[in-house]
């Protein structure tokens, strides 16, 4: 629309449906779960808007009932990766030059379709394929993802608004160009919202993307692709290429047209990608932007002035919701000696109440671990703790993968603040507690700061303000998302921009303008209205 200066509607956070007893949403989600569970689907690659089948198949399973197949998916090979690159670059020609407000309109439509028609499809897919309770699915695949689309489109306008000053007689303009090439989006299993955000945030800014979803979450990712298509995202703008890291990552990272990486996943994988980019740096047409949110060893730090019941709830929700499979999940806690006994008693009572089982039983608080490999990895940490003289299992520690990949919410108590499970990311329902002497508050804050290479999220619990101030000071660089008297999980788009530094990533704050700025390459244009016609400057005159 050339003769209007448009204002994108103000974004707002999508309200969370309660799924309380007798509600419409509870009825609809149960119907959708039953429907999707009873159908098996075949998932193709989607390249240039076309379905592509390779015959090299992977499985989409239900983690809490792993013998049940939701569907199969075709895995990409090197030939299809090149097809996807070609399709993306072709689509870029029209997408990059499309008026920004048209791109915004498409993604506002994505948001509204997700809030309505696709809400229960995506929530049911996430519950089944990623083993989430209805509440965890609702705050993820519905609310957070809707928020990403609403806020990112608004922030895009705010970025485009930003223009330089101009002296008299000239007009300076910043043109916020998309990057020259394609973006490689590699998404994790644990949040459908992140899966949806990583390929689309750059796209909103005029880029095109290749999207490799996590192999354990291809099912819900496929439904996102259907949503994008229905909302009007043009063919080739987002290319869906599930497959192994080796078959996708190797050819993509060697492409001269790689313009950026948008990644959420593990620190070692991010290191591998970054090193590969470094090794290939002579090949690229432009320096690829590398944006990654990786691991965490997120902490709860408690002062003796804290409210014990508040701490208890924060530990239970922060460590065990979604089986601890959140980058932000609390996985280590520092508790003062004076309140430990009281806290322990309350924790044990509450954790014993927690029900674990299928997502169809809405009374469950936790469900299953995503797959066998993750299950075995978490179990190895629990067994390590069981065998160690520096640790004991306070509660939990049992596991069973006969039907689903179930691991009990587990609390480890250690006498060593540098114990393995205090340092390493476990990504499961396991929290390790270290008891410190009340007088060692500051000393223990320093230990917390220095124990892990990560710096994603962390919480301080205290009622005496001066101890909160001290914790904020000592832990300045220990977390990119820092919480006071709240659990370290549950960041909301537009309210708590998410991301951490150190080994936790590039801290480019998903769902914020900071992130979108990584996907543009500004061109400065200076226009002079009355250009000089004489090369001489006034200082050159002597007579």
């Amino acid at each position, binding site marked *: 629309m050339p003769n209007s200066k448009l204002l994108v509607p103000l974004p707002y956070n999508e309200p969370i449906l309660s799924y309380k007893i007798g509600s419409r949403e509870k009825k609809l989600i149960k119907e959708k779960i039953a429907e999707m569970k009873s159908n098996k689907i075949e998932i193709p690659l989607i390249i240039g808007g076309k379905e592509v089948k390779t015959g090299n198949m992977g499985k989409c399973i239900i983690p809490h009932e792993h013998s049940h197949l939701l569907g199969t998916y075709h895995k990409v090979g090197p030939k299809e990766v090149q097809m996807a690159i070609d399709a993306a670059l072709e689509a870029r020609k029209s997408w990059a030059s499309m008026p920004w407000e048209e791109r915004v309109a498409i993604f506002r439509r994505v948001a509204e379709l997700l809030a309505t028609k696709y809400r229960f499809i995506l929530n049911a897919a996430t519950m089944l394929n990623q083993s989430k309770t209805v509440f965890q699915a609702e705050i993820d695949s519905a609310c957070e993802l809707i928020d990403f689309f609403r806020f990112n489109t608004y922030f895009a306008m705010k970025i485009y608004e930003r223009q330089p000053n101009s002296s008299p007689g000239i007009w300076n303009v910043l043109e916020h160009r998309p990057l020259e090439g394609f973006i490689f989006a590699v998404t*994790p*299993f*644990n949040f459908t919202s992140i899966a949806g955000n990583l390929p689309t945030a750059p796209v909103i800014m005029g880029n095109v993307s290749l999207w490799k979803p*996590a*192999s*354990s979450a291809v099912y819900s990712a496929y439904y996102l692709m259907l949503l994008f298509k229905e909302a009007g995202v043009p063919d080739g703008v987002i290319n869906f290429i599930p497959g*192994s*890291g*080796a078959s996708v*990552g190797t050819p993509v990272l060697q492409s001269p047209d790689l313009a950026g990486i948008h990644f959420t*996943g*593990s*620190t*070692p*994988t991010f*290191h*591998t*990608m970054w090193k590969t980019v470094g090794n290939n740096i002579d090949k690229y047409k432009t320096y690829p932007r590398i944006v990654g949110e*990786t*691991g965490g060893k997120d902490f709860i730090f408690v002062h003796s002035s804290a409210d014990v019941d508040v701490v208890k709830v924060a530990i239970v929700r922060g460590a065990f919701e979604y089986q601890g*499979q959140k*980058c932000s999940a609390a996985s280590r806690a520092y508790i003062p000696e004076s309140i430990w006994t009281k806290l322990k008693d309350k924790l044990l009572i509450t954790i014993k109440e927690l029900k674990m089982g299928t997502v169809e039983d809405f009374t469950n608080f936790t469900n299953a*671990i*995503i*797959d*066998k*490999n*993750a299950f*075995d*990895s978490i*179990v*190895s940490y629990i*067994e390590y703790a*069981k*065998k160690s003289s520096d640790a004991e299992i306070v509660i939990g520690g049992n596991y069973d993968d006969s039907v689903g990949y179930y691991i009990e919410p587990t609390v480890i108590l250690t006498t060593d603040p540098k114990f393995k499970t205090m340092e*390493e*990311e476990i*990504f499961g329902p396991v929290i390790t507690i270290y008891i410190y002497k009340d007088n060692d508050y500051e000393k223990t804050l320093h230990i917390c700061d220095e124990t892990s290479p990560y710096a994603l999220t962390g919480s301080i619990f205290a009622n005496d303000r001066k101890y909160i101030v001290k914790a904020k000071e000592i832990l300045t660089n220990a977390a990119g998302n820092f919480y006071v008297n709240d659990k370290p999980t549950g960041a909301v788009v537009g309210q708590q921009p998410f991301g951490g530094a150190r080994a936790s990533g590039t801290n480019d704050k998903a769902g914020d303008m900071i992130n979108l700025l990584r996907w543009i390459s500004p061109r400065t244009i200076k226009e002079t209205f009355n250009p000089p016609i004489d090369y001489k400057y006034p200082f050159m005159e002597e007579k």
Partner: protein
Amino acid sequence: MDISKDMWMEELLEKFPEAQDFLSRNDIICVQCGEAVWGSLENILKAKDYSDKEIDSLIKEINEHLKDKKTGGIKCLIRSY
């Protein structure tokens, strides 16, 4: 088929899931954030400062361990803790 140093972790775990316990006991991270880490076994070991000789030795050891049918493989070791 044996494990080789150019095998990516994802493929390794798909074909030899029981190798994870062996590797994690040697402080080699196979799975993080719920997914197999990217890269060949050789690259992953080199990032942990393994020399070429140590890499060859470790891989030989894993393969011998996996062939030990009497113990039923490492998977059974996990169960018997």
